[in-house]
């Protein structure tokens, strides 16, 4: 958690650093005339650099100090807020004032401002006095783009983008290795730049064709404003668009992920405790490449039930109620490879990385129904010659369904042939987990001839015999605390009894959900603020140019209403264009993210999280937009 946040912080620092350099660049450019005057008075470049340096340090130190003070208090507030939001165990969070964080902040800040100073010095050394003095008079040269080239580039950009979209959605299967996602991402970036490069020209061409729109109100003025500025702002528009895309995708997918996790959690933890133990331990076996020799005691224990083991190790069974214990079978007759039968080649061709030699888990139907009754989930029935598959891990379900879909799939166990009752996997699980991770259990009729030595594991599910949380916690400690005599006794004998309690699953899962949500909100909002700030800053600094233009409009008889409307449209377009493309990007990006997360976040949970994302973005982006509009309106107002 701490290291992840550390990395994220570095990343955020880089983003903010770039933002500061960029913003500073604007502000310095607005002061060209002033520097020109200084130079005519005989000030050297070095001295001007020194002035800027002093200013930068001054502003930097003040903002650092203020930021630190606000940060110390805000972080306290944040930890309370986060704790409230996620009902998380806050003991793992380190949000109290830390010297470390303070020092890091100072270092990041120093690095950022150092970068600013370097950029400023470079900028000043490039200035020519004559250009400085004439900065106001000189109009920005309007680069006129060939309309045909614009349209062509736009079409090329859109095609590349379309291909990238197709690649990450319809053709996502082909992206089986992590590095294969890089080309579509690069295509996305390049096409974004191309589209913004050509967009204004393209729109202008189209709207000019439609005289009704083109010659209405101040539309042509607004269009030209856009054309004039977007020409020179291709890179920043693209960067803003990509940042917004990240914000939307990160926020909505991670919120969906969190929702799914929390919902799954309730479904997936129906009882207080699960215990399991390997059955039929051999004298030696290999695990992770090491050969492990078992003791006689261990081997004997592996032949008895979990309940017996517990009693043997001084566990008072009165602490548990609703105890259900079932054996799980595994046989070399049914490995994953054999499960697929004659479909194996087809499956292997598509999914080469599955370990096909693993033996499948087999459970007798009545055993499963005992567990299912306890868990309150769907129970099933099988005829003597039928089998069925339970699987709720989305990706694996799809793969298994390839074999089951024709309804004629057959398996042979102990010489007897069983046919699949259903033409798909059914929902169900036997082991509690944080989410749907059952990759496949084969249910067979009770009279299936599974031998005693094919028992692979015992599984025990039970509730704690307790009414209050405190009592439950006490019983949990019997299983999970090193002080409990039950655990100590097991350890002495070297008996491995695995398991999990509802309490610990919920704790770890909430922790994870909190981390994900927290990082997502943190990153998402930083990106959002960074891009809105750039847009707002650009618009506000350019408003002096706009002022002249709007003054002319006023002089030729535009009333305030029309002027305000065209200003609103102009700023609206600047804020809207990157957002629109970012939303289109996100539609595909989110789909890809859901696909990649392999069912960790479900599509049903996406809608509320998208709504939440829209609200967050609406508030932040919207208020920046309004602030920019009212600020600019004030600037262009006639005094």
């Amino acid at each position, binding site marked *: 958690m701490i290291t992840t946040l550390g990395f994220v912080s570095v990343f955020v620092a880089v983003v903010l650093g770039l933002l500061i350099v960029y913003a500073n660049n604007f502000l310095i450019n607005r002061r060209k*005339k*002033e520097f*020109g*005057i*200084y*130079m*005519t*008075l*005989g*000030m*050297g470049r*070095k*001295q001007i650099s020194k002035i800027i340096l002093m200013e930068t340090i001054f502003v930097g130190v003040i903002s650092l100090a203020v930021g630190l003070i606000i940060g110390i208090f805000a972080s306290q507030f944040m930890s309370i807020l986060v704790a409230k939001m996620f009902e998380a165990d806050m003991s793992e969070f380190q949000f109290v004032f830390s010297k470390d964080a303070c020092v890091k902040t100072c270092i990041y800040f120093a690095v950022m401002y150092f970068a600013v100073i370097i950029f400023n010095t470079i900028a000043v050394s490039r200035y020519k*006095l*004559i250009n400085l*003095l004439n900065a106001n008079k000189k109009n920005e040269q309007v680069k006129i783009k060939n309309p045909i080239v614009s349209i062509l580039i736009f079409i090329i950009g859109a095609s590349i983008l379309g291909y990238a979209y197709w690649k990450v959605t319809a053709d996502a299967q082909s992206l089986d290795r992590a590095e294969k996602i890089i080309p579509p991402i690069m295509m996305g970036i390049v096409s974004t730049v191309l589209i913004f490069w050509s967009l204004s020209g393209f729109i202008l061409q189209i709207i000019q064709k439609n005289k009704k729109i083109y010659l209405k109100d101040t539309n042509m003025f607004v269009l030209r404003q856009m054309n004039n500025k977007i020409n020179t702002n291709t890179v920043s528009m693209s960067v803003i668009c990509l940042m917004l895309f990240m914000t939307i995708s990160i926020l909505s997918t991670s919120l969906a992920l969190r929702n799914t996790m929390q919902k799954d959690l309730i479904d997936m933890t129906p009882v207080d405790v699960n215990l399991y133990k390997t059955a039929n331990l051999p004298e030696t076996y290999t695990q992770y490449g090491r050969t492990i020799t078992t003791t006689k005691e261990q081997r004997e224990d592996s032949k008895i039930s979990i309940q017996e083991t517990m009693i043997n190790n001084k566990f008072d069974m009165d602490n548990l109620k609703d105890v259900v214990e079932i054996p799980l079978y595994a046989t070399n007759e049914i490995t994953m490879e054999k499960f697929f039968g004659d479909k194996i080649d087809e499956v292997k061709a598509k999914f080469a990385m599955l370990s096909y030699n693993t033996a499948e888990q087999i459970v007798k139907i009545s055993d499963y129904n005992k567990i299912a009754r306890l868990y309150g989930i769907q129970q099933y029935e099988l005829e003597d010659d039928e089998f069925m598959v339970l699987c709720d891990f989305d990706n694996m379900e799809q793969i298994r369904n390839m074999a089951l879909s024709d309804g004629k799939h057959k398996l042979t166990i102990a010489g007897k042939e069983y046919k699949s009752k259903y033409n798909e996997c059914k929902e169900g699980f036997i082991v509690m987990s944080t989410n749907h991770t059952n990759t496949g259990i084969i249910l067979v009729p009770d009279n299936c001839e599974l031998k005693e030595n094919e028992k692979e594991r015992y599984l025990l599910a039970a509730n704690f015999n307790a009414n209050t949380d405190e009592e439950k916690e006490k019983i949990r400690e019997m299983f999970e605390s090193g002080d409990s005599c039950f655990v100590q006794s097991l350890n002495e004998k070297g008996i491995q009894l695995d398991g999990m309690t509802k309490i610990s699953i919920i704790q770890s899962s909430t922790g994870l959900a909190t981390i994900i949500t927290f990082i997502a909100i943190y990153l998402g909002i930083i990106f959002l603020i960074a891009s809105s700030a750039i847009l707002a800053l650009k618009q506000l600094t350019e408003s002096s140019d706009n002022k002249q233009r709007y003054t002319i409009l006023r002089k030729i008889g535009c009333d305030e209403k029309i002027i305000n409307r065209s200003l609103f449209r102009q700023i609206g377009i600047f804020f809207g264009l990157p957002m629109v493309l970012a939303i289109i990007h996100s539609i595909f990006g989110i789909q890809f993210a859901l696909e990649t997360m392999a069912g960790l976040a479900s599509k049903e949970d996406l809608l509320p999280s998208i709504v939440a994302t829209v609200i967050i973005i609406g508030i932040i982006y919207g208020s920046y937009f309004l602030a920019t509009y009212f600020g600019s309106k004030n600037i262009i107002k006639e005094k």
Partner: protein
Amino acid sequence: MENVLEVKNIEKYYGNKSNLTKAIDNISFNVKKGEFVGIMGASGSGKSTLLNCISTIDRVTAGHIMVNGEDITKLKGNKLNKFRREELGFIFQDFNLLDTLTAYENIAIALTIQKVPAKEIDRRVQDIAEKLGIKDILKKYPYQVSGGQKQRIASARAIISNPQLVLADEPTGALDSKSARQLLENFELLNQKLNATILMVTHDAFTASYAKRILFIKDGKIFNEIVKGNDTRKQFFEEIIEVQTLLGGDLNDVI
């Protein structure tokens, strides 16, 4: 008397191969110490470019400009800054005052850059403000005073460091006639009482008539030169109008 400014065969080209403009085409002239020289010409004649080259705001393509015997076309870096600081005073058409500074501060900054002791700065600012009649507005910001006052603040700033050469680019361009007259009287005063050497670019005959010698520029070349001598200002003004008529095609500029 010694030459403060010697301009030797300077040329200035703009643009690229396909579209070359000769803004200045082989101009030479001298300005002596204490002279008040006007440069006249229509818009586009090259007069502002000439001034920009002399003031080191722009660089010449060829030729030399000597100020007090030093070739300023060769100056770079700190020497150039020192030259601007100590030898030149600028007056611009649009004043170029710093709008965040008061009149007092705008004038004083020329001296603080030169690291003049604080006591002396105050004395000199008060002194020059007295002479130019802007003592009452020293505490005001540029946006609080009139155009004429702004230009007098700018003039004060230009001459407070006792420069060898004061360069004025259309100083009356943004002023009404009353303010213009007041400013030009101030220039006369600076020239006569403080012995400041002034080089002033203008296209306005009335403004030019305050100078003692006028160079006419047309298409980047010196076209004519007239000296006031013992004429009255009115006579000199008529002389200027005559030359302007000769220059031709620029009647609009006369009015």
